């Protein structure tokens, strides 16, 4: 398990970003390299995402659950799924605040677990990949519908 945390500021207003983050359909669509989103209900959705790096794309077949939310300021999401024969599990809690100079400041912390041989292979990098994906989601969320 790798513990991760990070923060970033996006240009979108908090309310608008929140709408994306709390809507499974729009959140799913904001995942990096997403191919296929299906929404089960207001708290559950699944997606096939293919985050890309210089070395190619890694196909993740994921199911997500929005576990907890406080409108406009906080959301906690759990995800689990497959990367080939490997299993991935993640938990992330995200807090939003109005940024000083406009836009939204997001802070997150969570953990990610990769089980199988990729867990060994990616042990030095899984944390940073995770952070980059959260940033990518926030960026995509911020530009969603704009």
């Amino acid at each position, binding site marked *: *398990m790798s513990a991760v945390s990070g923060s970033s500021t996006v240009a979108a207003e908090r309310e608008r970003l929140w709408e994306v983050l709390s809507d499974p359909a729009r959140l799913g669509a904001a995942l990096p390299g997403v191919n296929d989103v299906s929404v089960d209900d207001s708290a559950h959705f699944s997606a096939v995402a293919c985050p890309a790096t210089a070395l190619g794309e890694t196909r993740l077949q994921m199911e997500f659950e929005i576990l907890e939310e406080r409108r406009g300021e906080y959301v906690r999401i759990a995800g689990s799924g497959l990367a*080939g*024969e*490997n*299993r991935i599990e993640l938990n992330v809690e995200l807090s939003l605040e109005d940024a000083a100079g406009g836009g939204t400041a997001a802070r997150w912390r969570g953990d990610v*677990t990769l*089980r*199988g*041989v990729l*867990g*060994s*292979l990616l*042990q030095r990098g899984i944390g940073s990949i995770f952070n980059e994906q959260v940033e990518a989601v926030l960026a995509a969320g911020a530009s969603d519908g704009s």
Partner: protein
Amino acid sequence: MSGETTYYPAVEQNERLGAYSGQSIPRVEDKRLLKGQGAFVDDLWMHRQGHVHFVRSPYAHARIVSIDVARAEAQPGVYATLTGEEVGVLQQPYFQMGPEPGGLMKDYCMAVGKARYMGEPVAAVLAESAELARDAAALVEVVYEPLGVTVDGVATIEADAPVLHEEIGSNVAWQGVYDYGDVDWALENADHVVRIDRLHFHRFSSTPLETTGALVNWDPGTGVVEFRTNNQMPMFAAMFIGPAIGIGVDHMQFSSQDIGGGFGIKITSYTYLTALALLSRKAGRPVKWSESRWEHLAASAHGNERTFLDVEVPVMSDGTILGFKVRAFDDAGAYLRYEPLGAVIWSQVVPGNYRFKHVRVDYTETLTNKCPVGPNRGYSRLQHLWLIERIVDIVAKELGFDPVELRKLNYIQPEEFPYETPNGCIYDSGDYPAMLERVLELIDYRGARERQRAAAGTGRRIGIGIGSTLDSGTNNFGQSRIINSALPFSGNGEAAVVRLDLYGEVTVTIGTTPQGQGHETTAAQVTADILGMSPDQVHVVAGYNKAANTYVGFSGTYASQFAVTGLGAVMGAAEKLRGEIVKVGACMLGAEESDIELAGGFVRLAANPEAAIPFIGIAATVFANVAELPGELADSVTLNCRHVYRPPFTVPDHETKRGKLTLTYASQIHAAVIEIDEETGQVKILDYAAVDECGRKINPKIVEGQVHGATGHGIGAALYETFEYDADGQLRNATFMDYHVATALDVPDIRYDDIECPSPFTPNGAKGMGEGGGAPLSTICSAIEDALPDGAHVVFDTHNSSERVYDLLRSAAAQGPRGVEVVSR
């Protein structure tokens, strides 16, 4: 020799050895290996073969809710699949060697119902090519329900730890107390008692460069299952596979030619062989499997990990160490594949090289969600020998004894051999003080001490370490009864056939499975000496073949014994053939048998070498012109002579845990000079030496090569190689990128010398060797300890990464607990 005691029936030394035995002749095997003409298992193929890919559990512990192979099977080129659910029907659980509680375990060739370690096979896919099998395997849908994970070999026995095997009810596989002498008396009467909190022997493997593999064909017409595989103990594998899937040993064929290293790790591949047999039967095809390196690292076998707690050592004021008391926890991983034999094997060397009289080991074998262990070079003894060497070094440091003098004082002395240990084992011969002297010369001990003083204040700390070890060989399988009195095993043996072929060729077959030890060469050397010919005239058939060669139940290559059991069998068979040749030759020359000698491939009259018959003449007569011989003589020779070498063992005693557990005791003493960078903790080996004693050597160069190799493994393990699991049971060194195998830059040149103390118990004076006893683990720890500043924590682990050494260096300044205390009277 001491007194009148005789421990074994007298053994006659074979006087004919000498012309070639003892010479470092180049190996017969090398030509084909150097030219890439070896036949390793992955080099073999069969018509219509399919390729296997195993689907493996990413979880260390999980219930398997369902496995859906429909999508995989629908792929073009996929022949068949096999799931754990099917295995649960097709296979009976394997025979267990341990008694209850561990003996209750239900172990199968794939995960049935639940997966218990990361990498455990849960399904298999057979396809036209390896690529397609892997592609399809990714489509097998497995639903898991993750369970709690236990990875600490000691804490796993706590009540709150998740239980791996419900049928056992706890994670304790075996427990027993070995109590020799009177350690309580010793602790009460000693001048000092040294207490060490915890020592940990880490998990690693010798990782043969060739991974496990097999080509298996279940022939539907004959019902014979053919295993072409690099398993290194086929008859042991047969014993497990046969009852599990209902085939007779007579219907199992095993063969191998060249094996790319084994080191014990390839003994327990029988689980994979079982799965492959089932898959072959289901698909009606030969099936081929070559393990990938990550599969090998995660799911073949690991060496035993052992934790020693509450070590108490009674010491007299003159430095005499009376013995010790310890609680040992051996972590077997998820299944007992060769275990719990490790729980007794260590007791072949209860006092190590020392005259310890009072030893109590409270031994617990435990189960965790990690890869099952298997015998690994130095199996179960190297853990115990490391403990003993740690004890000696820590006693020296804590009580202010010179580590060299303390060893000399406590070593078993040369005049004490044969030496009976507290548990009734007989050390055959040795001279440890002389070996220690020699190894210290090789590293220039005095010079090294001067360098150590000169290095003070330079940021480099120099340490000098010593490791004394034993390589007990030719084990008595009766020791398994100390673990489980119901087991029907005892003794040991090996079989060989030496025969004369039609045109006078001498052919040797043996039941062993060589993996680089040069059996073809040394068997030719002893045969040549006995039959009076040159080794290149002797054809030793390469590799193992159950149908074509001879074998016994103990056949295989493991546990430092070939020079005794394998060559013992070859020598016996060669002597029988010699007797027949002499008999026929005497008849044909019209002479008495006592007038005959064998030389240069001829039978001749000793008094008149001109009167000679070449071996072809003998063979052609017996095989093709037999009417020329008197009927009585013709009926009494076959020129096809089998011999089984049987060491003179009796059954050890289950109650007292005493007995003669091994026949020979080779030894090695190592010394190293290391340098530690104070700022980083990085260790550099400046000088390394090994002195070896293994009785009479048949081929000294091969012996030296074995010492080099074992030293390389030990140095690798001491500094670099470790299997580390996280709390979730994920192996974090699942590739050679993170399991750093020692390279040519990591193993230094090794100064080598030897002494020779022939074994009185073997027909050639040789002792089994090759495992090496893990001497570098002790030596490197000893050297690190020697380099640490006063007040530092004791070196407590066999594996010492730069960071661990860095922490040890800094522990002195922290003035925290040191992991050791001394109580003096």
